[in-house]
């Protein structure tokens, strides 16, 4: 589904990704772990098409097409979803209106009919249950004045609604208490299907107690320095990142 080959990218003048390669197949959950500044969030942003990051070389193929050629909204319409580390506030725009716009744009891109507000309300009832959110959230402005946990749950709500093929969760666990963490993780697990894939970007192992990955990759200094199964996350937890960054230097 996704093939990243020797990807290099800058944020401003600074090179952050320095030759990163990764393959993700449908049905898989990949965890990308690493210390602060290793390039985890940059990877997430580059995959989603944030113009603030410049790809200098390498390629990313998504379902057979050159992902880097596509504008951010086209990537979204083709099923790439980023759950933001810092969801953005849009004051004055109701969450319900925003969600319906997004849902309809993605449906249109798939050649499906738009849904009207009534149908959409029914659909939302179901999705809200999914992330244990109150319908009052729908009438509030997008992320405006939301607590950290509410913002993250709102991201998962969008994910549940938009049903992406490739979901990238950028530090979705940061700032969550244990209950919110469980709700978010449950959501992600329930959304897992044979035809979609998830990349979980995280600093800590604890989210992986709830979302069990098929593969764990360790990112250091802009490259993947170690890959393994789910047990790698536990090993990291025990030994710390120095263990692999050292391994990276040696390799």
């Amino acid at each position, binding site marked *: 589904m996704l093939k990243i080959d020797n990807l290099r990218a800058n944020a401003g003048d600074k090179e952050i990704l320095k030759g990163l390669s990764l393959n993700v197949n449908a049905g898989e959950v990949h965890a990308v772990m690493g210390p602060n500044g290793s390039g985890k969030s940059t990877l997430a942003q580059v995959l989603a098409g944030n*113009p603030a990051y410049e790809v200098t070389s390498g390629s990313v193929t998504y379902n057979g097409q050159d992902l880097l050629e596509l504008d*951010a909204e086209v990537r979204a319409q083709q099923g790439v979803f980023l759950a933001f580390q810092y969801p953005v506030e849009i004051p*004055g725009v109701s969450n319900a209106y925003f969600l319906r716009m997004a849902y309809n744009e993605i449906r249109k891109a798939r050649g499906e009919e738009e849904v009207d507000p009534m149908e959409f309300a029914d659909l939302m009832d179901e999705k809200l249950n999914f992330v244990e959110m109150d319908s009052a959230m729908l009438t509030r402005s997008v992320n405006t004045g939301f607590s950290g946990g509410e913002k993250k749950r709102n991201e998962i709500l969008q994910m549940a609604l938009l049903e992406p093929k490739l979901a990238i969760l950028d530090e979705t666990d940061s700032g969550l208490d244990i209950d919110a963490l469980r709700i978010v993780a449950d959501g992600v697990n329930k959304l897992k299907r044979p035809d979609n894939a998830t990349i979980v970007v995280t600093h800590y192992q604890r989210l992986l107690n709830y979302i069990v990955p098929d593969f764990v990759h360790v990112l250091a200094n802009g490259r993947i320095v170690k890959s393994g199964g789910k047990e790698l996350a536990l090993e990291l937890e025990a030994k710390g990142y120095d263990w692999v960054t050292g391994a990276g230097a040696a390799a």
Partner: protein
Amino acid sequence: MSSSIDQLISKDYEHGFITDVETDTIPPGLDEDVIRVISGKKNEPAFMLEWRLKAYRRWLSMKEPRWPNVKYAPIDYQALSYYSAPKSVKQLQSLDEVDPELIRTYEKLGIPLLEQKRLSGVAVDAIFDSVSVGTTMREELSKVGVIFCSLGEALREHPELVEKYLGSVVPYSDNFFAALNSAVFSDGSFVYIPKGVRCPMDLSTYFRINAADTGQFERTLIVADEGSYVSYLEGCTAPKRSTNQLHAAVVELVALKGATIKYSTVQNWYAGDAEGVGGIYNFVTKRGKAAENAKISWTQVETGSAITWKYPSVILQGDNSVGEFYSVAVVNNHQQADTGTKMIHIGRNTKSNIVSKGISAGQGQNSYRGQVKVLAKAENARNYTQCDSMLVGNRCGAHTFPYIEVGNNTATVEHEASTSKIGEDQIFYLKQRGLSAEQAVSMIVSGFCKEVFKELPMEFALEAQQLLGITLEGSVG
């Protein structure tokens, strides 16, 4: 990083076409004879001509205001023509006699004038260049005693009402442009709502400038008698021309005891091209006077004009009167706007509420200028002002000039201001959810303007939202 802002091509002004009709236009220039000609063409009563001449003489002694935060080359008032009317407009018996070319013009603008096609529930007075070409729904309105006609017609049919109220809120000596308007005004709308009547439909005037090199000087007078209610809408467009055109209008609102006037404007005059060539100079005086328990509410969405200079104001004369001002002003490319309001608290327990949303894009300059004045006798006067600016890109400007004078220590005056920027992060967030850049900007801006849009009548609110999208298209990529 802001490379994506500043891209995209601007969408063309869609009302920029020119209608080909024969006009009766007097030669350029202004003197007392010109004023006599205008008054004569309109068969006005003697008092009107005298008033015009007094205004003209006063105007000669006045100087064009230079305090607004806008820049433009001096206007040659002798180079303008002060009267232009489609030749076919005579005394019409019914709208069916209106020149089909004019009917088509308004249809193109989405304003059906023929009764069978009229907007449901809205009566329209269409002003083409200097004169009213037709007013719809008059019969239904007259059943409840509402007078809605052109000002010229009101001068002939109801001279006593016009004489009593014209200039009672904006005297001819008020300011340079108001004096000029008083001397040469050509037509406009007149509304009278009788005592205790709730006007059964929204009233609307649609202004269209067509002729080149003419000034447009119309005057609107709305009188809401005791305990009455009226909601009035005003829309404006003009063709694209490479020269600047002057539009100096006056609007006067008289809300008698317990009356309510809600006045909404969507102003979309031609704004000039992306390089700042052409466009309308919109120099307008709008003011209302509220008697005891009366309420005047101004709502405006200003997206057009090369330069906007206007301050819809309320004189809160009677006790417990209420004044409101809700404004969205958008400038893009080289547009300049210096706009705001004045709330003059004279009566006791008077209340005013100001919500101003300024959006600047391109190299546009947007200034909010607002005065809140509480006079000595205005016990317990209250004002709340909220003034928010939004910047799109980094070559535009937003400025705020509040003037607060409080002469009574029981008054409460609050002023809140904020400035924000449309963030690349907001646009990216929305694009990541499948929205285009235009949809994203439109959504962010609509959210920003929500408090003002909710004051607009439904149909107008949709139009305003679309206009914003069009005006800002091209400012963000």
